[in-house]
């Protein structure tokens, strides 16, 4: 056996400067996949329609042609099978990157993820590793209705043994995806349909953004807004508007939901004394509950000047009708209004 070609964390720059080249979020995903496939023989992709079709959202376009059907594998419609095959291949020395076409369908993969991928290492006394990544686009806003618009990330946050990553920018999605592929744990990698076409600066060479590091996306002194995925963009837009009224928001993107890097959040709330959590997923049992607890459990508690607020999706399935769909999840104006109330001490 020849020595395999391997990508290693040591050889990759950590969070390098973003540079000036702009690409879209989906191109950044594809670039990370291409670079991992090129540099590491253990890496392969599997999922529904990821080959000649290029993936439902085009994330893998051209990769089957470039790397062959042996490494970019089209599967039958079998989500439990995809997840299980990733677990098995990872246990046996590979670095599989599975794609679940819409996050909703991961409900069919749950047993393999929750009871197998997450627990195997622990049950085997820390002696096995399951280095797999399962990518999936979540979120609403495309008119795809209740069964194609879910934001289920918190289901996975609740499972020790899984890491959960939810990038909001092209820069982060590339660096975090490479870091996830090199991580020795099963990683649930949540993309967002409405982010795929957003653009931003991304370095061309491979690099990593370490898992478990929050990012301060905007600094401000009046209140802290902690937002995830698409809501980071909406929070930044809201912050821009509020700045015109003299309200300065600090916006924090956790990027990795589990393990959460809470230090920057705690530090920010100590500074501002006010915190607003924004996510698209439904409120009850959502990640916001965890974030609020982390804040009130921490040294930031004594600095709070107002209740910690949550702005989230309504506790309903996503409706089809365009207008209802928009009302089901936080929009920029709602964030502006809520942040303004909080900053003015009206809540």
């Amino acid at each position, binding site marked *: 056996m020849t020595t395999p070609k391997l990508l290693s964390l040591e050889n990759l720059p950590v969070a390098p400067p973003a540079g000036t080249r702009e690409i879209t979020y989906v191109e950044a995903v594809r670039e990370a996949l291409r670079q991992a496939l090129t540099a590491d023989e253990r890496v392969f992709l599997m999922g*529904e*329609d990821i*080959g*000649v*079709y290029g993936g*439902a959202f085009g994330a893998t376009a051209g990769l089957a042609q470039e790397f062959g059907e042996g490494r970019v594998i*089209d599967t*039958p*419609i*079998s*989500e*439990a*099978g995809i997840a299980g095959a990733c677990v098995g291949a990872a246990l046996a020395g590979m670095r599989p990157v599975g794609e679940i076409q819409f996050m*909703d*369908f991961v409900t*069919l993969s749950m047993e393999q993820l929750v009871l197998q991928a997450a627990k195997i290492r622990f049950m085997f006394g820390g002696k096995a590793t399951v280095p797999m990544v399962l990518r999936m686009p979540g979120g609403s806003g*495309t*008119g*795809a*209705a*209740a*069964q*194609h618009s879910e934001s289920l990330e918190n289901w996975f946050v609740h499972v020790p043994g899984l890491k959960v990553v939810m990038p909001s920018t092209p820069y982060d999605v590339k660096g975090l995806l490479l870091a996830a592929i090199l991580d020795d744990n099963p990683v649930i990698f949540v993309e967002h349909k409405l982010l795929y076409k957003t653009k931003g600066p991304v370095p061309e060479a491979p690099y990593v953004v370490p898992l478990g590091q929050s990012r301060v996306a905007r600094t401000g002194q009046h209140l802290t807004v902690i937002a995830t995925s698409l809501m980071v963009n909406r929070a930044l837009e809201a912050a821009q508007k509020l700045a015109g009224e003299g309200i300065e928001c600090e916006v924090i993107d956790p990027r990795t939901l589990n393990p959460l890097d809470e230090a920057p959040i705690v530090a920010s709330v100590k500074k501002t004394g006010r915190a607003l959590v924004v996510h698209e997923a439904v409120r009850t049992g959502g990640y916001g509950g965890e974030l609020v607890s982390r804040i009130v459990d921490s040294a930031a508690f004594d600095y709070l000047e107002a209740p910690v607020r949550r702005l989230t999706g*309504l*506790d*309903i*399935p996503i*409706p*089809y*009708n*365009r*207008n*209802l769909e928009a*009302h*089901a999840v936080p929009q920029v104006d709602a964030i502006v209004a809520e942040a303004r109330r909080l900053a003015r001490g009206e809540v």
Partner: protein
Amino acid sequence: MSRSTQSKKEAEHLAEWGADGARQKLGLMMLIRAFEEKAEELFALGRVHGTMHLSIGQEATAVGAASALRRGDYLLNHHRGHGHCLAWFDSDVDAMMAEFMGKETGYCRGRGGSMHIANVEANNLGANGIVAGGVPIAVGVGLSIKMRQTDQVCMVNFGDGASNEGAFHESLNMASIWKLPVIYLCENNQYAMSMPVTKAMTVAQISDRAAAYGIPGVTVDGNDPVAVYEAVAAAAARARAGQGPTLVESQTYRWRGHSKSDKQAYRTRDEVKEWQQRDPILRFAARLGLSDAEREAMRQAAVDRINAAVAFAEASPEPDVRTIMDGVYA
């Protein structure tokens, strides 16, 4: 069954429908096509959002299958289900179109949209956005029928791709051991999105999978409403007699892309054209001996009906945002 005895039986069924009945079935196929073509147009014009899955080319399966069942039977439908919904008992084209356009007057008050159209009052338990999502539900519906000791049946339709989900296999096995009155109608349109059937499984026919569960499996020409009618009628008779489920595979073809965004790089134009030669509507019209003028008049009537449905939907109100929390819990 040899081809000649099969044709003879089919001719009998055709006779059973009568000239008017057969024309009515043709008219229904044309209504489905007109609905789909209008849906495509509305989408292209940006007047609806989301996505949709058109069943153009598959109309004979929906019409043949529904006509083999009775009012009071159950239907579980899937994402490419506009045709099945229109062909089902007491269907209301206006409510269909209004749902497609997200209006309050739609079957699901605009909450469901194209992928989730249901007519619960008519035991049409709805389309499903999850591939094979309805297949295990059929077990429960069948079980309920059995427990309530009625002579209803439940038909669940799904695609070739759905037969690769674990849920499909669990469902067939459960319905088999409990001899449930379920008809599994697999609409094999040759592709699951970009995945050809020949790459997704190694069995020669999807109906071969029935053998693993000890139930009958038949494959029929899904572009012939009479052939589909006959197979579903036989399955229904078996189900009503307490003999259990049947897997019917209906061989057909999806003329359009999988959904709104599909470059169709996985198949050739020639292949599509070849299947279009087997247009279920033209074939059936020819079989009924319709002149071009008669056929055209029927087509126009279908288009007019669909245009009226669009007018109804457009005049209908949007759902009131204040009712957004409705319907989550009973």
